């Protein structure tokens, strides 16, 4: 693959793998949420994310060539080929931790996607335009829930603060740009994520303040997911669930 195609491919994998892995994680709640409405909301969010994955990885497969499909990328790659941030592969924890993770991710998407709608790449712009409408609903709900639980009972507040303390070290990776991002900026395809940090901090800060939660002082960031250098141990376990059917019965279809 030519160098610029390879960079585009990597960018698309990052977008697609984020939504695929988070979509799978959120779908693990199906049938287990605390109340029916939340179960339906989680399943719907997962569905949107998997749908967006089909667009991102579908385009990635097209760029890759060799008649590859989105399904090949989702089901036949191993851990080291995934390019999602570590945040989305972490286990769900309790309901509060799941919604805190959702909010931290939705907030980022709600800032990135509107910019991608102006991408020089028309397919990326079209996918972003579609996904952005769905993300608007996701962030509205996850922000509301973070506020409701953070500024809730003593128990829910403590759990949300613990979730924020646990997840905050995984936020920095979203903004850790590298040569793939530079190539996207140069081609007018996507913004440098590092430039989105101030807007992100403002949005997240406002919601967390309303939720009476304190952002941890440290800006230490676990990294390695979006470059593929080091994933957590959790991604492999997730893939054994997500990929087992295609691994056990190669080429199986509905």
């Amino acid at each position, binding site marked *: 693959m030519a160098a610029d195609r390879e960079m585009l491919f990597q960018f698309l994998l990052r977008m697609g793998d984020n939504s695929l892995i988070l979509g799978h994680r959120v779908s693990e709640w199906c049938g287990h949420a605390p109340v029916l409405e939340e179960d339906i*909301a989680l399943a719907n969010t997962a*569905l949107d994310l*998997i*749908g*967006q994955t089909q667009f991102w990885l579908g385009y990635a497969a097209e760029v890759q060539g060799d008649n590859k499909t989105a399904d090949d990328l989702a089901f036949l790659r191993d851990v080291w080929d995934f390019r999602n941030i570590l945040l989305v592969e972490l286990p769900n924890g309790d309901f509060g931790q799941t919604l805190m993770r959702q909010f931290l991710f939705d907030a980022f998407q709600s800032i990135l996607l509107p910019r991608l709608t102006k991408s020089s790449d*028309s397919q990326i712009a*079209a*996918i972003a335009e*579609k996904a952005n409408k769905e993300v608007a*609903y996701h962030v509205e709900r996850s922000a509301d829930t973070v506020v409701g639980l953070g500024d809730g009972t003593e128990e829910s507040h403590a759990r949300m603060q613990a979730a924020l303390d646990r997840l905050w070290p995984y936020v920095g990776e979203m903004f850790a740009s590298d040569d793939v991002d530079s190539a996207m900026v140069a081609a007018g395809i996507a913004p440098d994520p590092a430039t989105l940090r101030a807007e992100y901090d403002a949005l997240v800060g406002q919601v967390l303040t309303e939720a009476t939660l304190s952002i941890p002082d440290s800006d230490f960031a676990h990294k390695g997911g979006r470059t593929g250098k080091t994933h957590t141990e959790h991604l492999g376990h997730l893939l054994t669930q997500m990929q087992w059917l295609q691994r056990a019965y190669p080429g199986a279809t509905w």
Partner: protein
Amino acid sequence: MTLNSIPSIDSIWNWLDAIPDPEIPAISLTDLGIIRDVTYEGDTLIVTLTPTYSGCPATSIINLDIETALRSHGIKKLELRRQLSPAWTTDWMTQDGRAKLEKYGIAPPQPSGGPTKCPHCGSQAVEKLSQFGSTPCKSQWRCTACLEPFDYFKCI
């Protein structure tokens, strides 16, 4: 088939208008506004669709229903195309479609972001239960007058 016997674009639209949405059969695919274009390229009929929500499971059923319907009308060369941009909006839903939804018990989409009245009793005393509902395109509401829950078709 000679060129003269190729069904007109108007007939195709009429046939498409008779296909119900698989998840909300009260309205048709054309009421929903997801069919963006119908045209011929040579003697191949091209139907362009846009998805409502990215992950909507009805999308593949919709494609199947369109193909089945058009083939039953004798269309042999058919291609379905997906178009993402401009992204689907509830503004494209027909007035007829909105009326059918309400009659069916689903509050139609409103620019204000919420239903104006209960589709069962007509009361304006309604409250939101959840932004998400039984399908990706709906949210859950309830009427505080008649106490019935109902679906609201989200405005996007």
